[in-house]
């Protein structure tokens, strides 16, 4: 069994990945505001965590203008989905081994 994923382990990033992987791979992902509500993070905090996840290749961030308003959409990459699944399996293995 792999160890914890250092990128996903942080609570906000764990919630972000949980939310994004709950969407179907074919979906467009979740927008920034929705993610903020789900994670309880502030704008700046969430932005920094998303940068971390994007650098690791776990999420894809798309910025666009919709009805003249900026809209940031975030989607889990296949690599991110696999990493999240491994991390969850690791957490389960800790409980199973307790």
């Amino acid at each position: 069994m792999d160890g914890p994923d250092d990128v996903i382990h942080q609570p906000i990033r764990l919630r972000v990945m949980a939310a994004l992987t709950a969407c179907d791979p074919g979906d467009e992902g979740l927008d920034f505001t929705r993610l903020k509500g789900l994670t309880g993070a502030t704008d700046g905090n969430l932005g920094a965590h998303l940068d971390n996840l994007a650098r690791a290749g776990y999420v894809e961030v798309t910025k666009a203008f919709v009805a003249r308003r900026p809209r940031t959409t975030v989607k889990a990459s296949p690599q991110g989905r696999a990493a999240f699944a491994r991390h969850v399996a690791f957490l389960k293995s800790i409980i199973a081994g307790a």
Partner: protein
Amino acid sequence: MTIRSDEAAAMLADVDSVVAKVKQSRIYRLAALIMTLWGVVNLVRDGLIAIGPAWFGPRWFFVDALGVAGTIGILRYSASPGARFPVRTLAGFLLFYAFGWIWAHLLGHFGPRQQMAFWPTLFLFGYSVAGLWFGPAFTAIGLSVTALVVAAYFWAGGAFTLWLAVVTGGGFILCGLWMRRA
């Protein structure tokens, strides 16, 4: 990095909580689209019946047929690529409709006023029950609009049809818009 089992359990509970919220949000968004569609259908149908009951009264079925076709379209459009069409959801609607038809036409001997009150309250009852599984917004909307329809049945007099158009039409549209943000 060392993680204790209670910390792991807390993290997994956190993950489950977020996943449940996302899934509920997706259900609300899908329901919001269908609710807004039926709000428009109800507004148009009941509005036309109120304006020209003699001409439009017998033709209401065509507006509802558009609503059913739209609902099927939304269910198909919102399904993920490769996902199976939600046959059980559609079967649920059809069973409700069959139940309603049996009571409205065979057993109940309802007059026009009873028919117009019966159909929305039947489906709102389904909404209220669905809320026990899918989220409290369904139950709140189902019970609130039912109360308005029942109130209109007793007290709206000759404006009953117009009241229905506003309450079940406008009400569903507003509830649909609200559910999108929930």
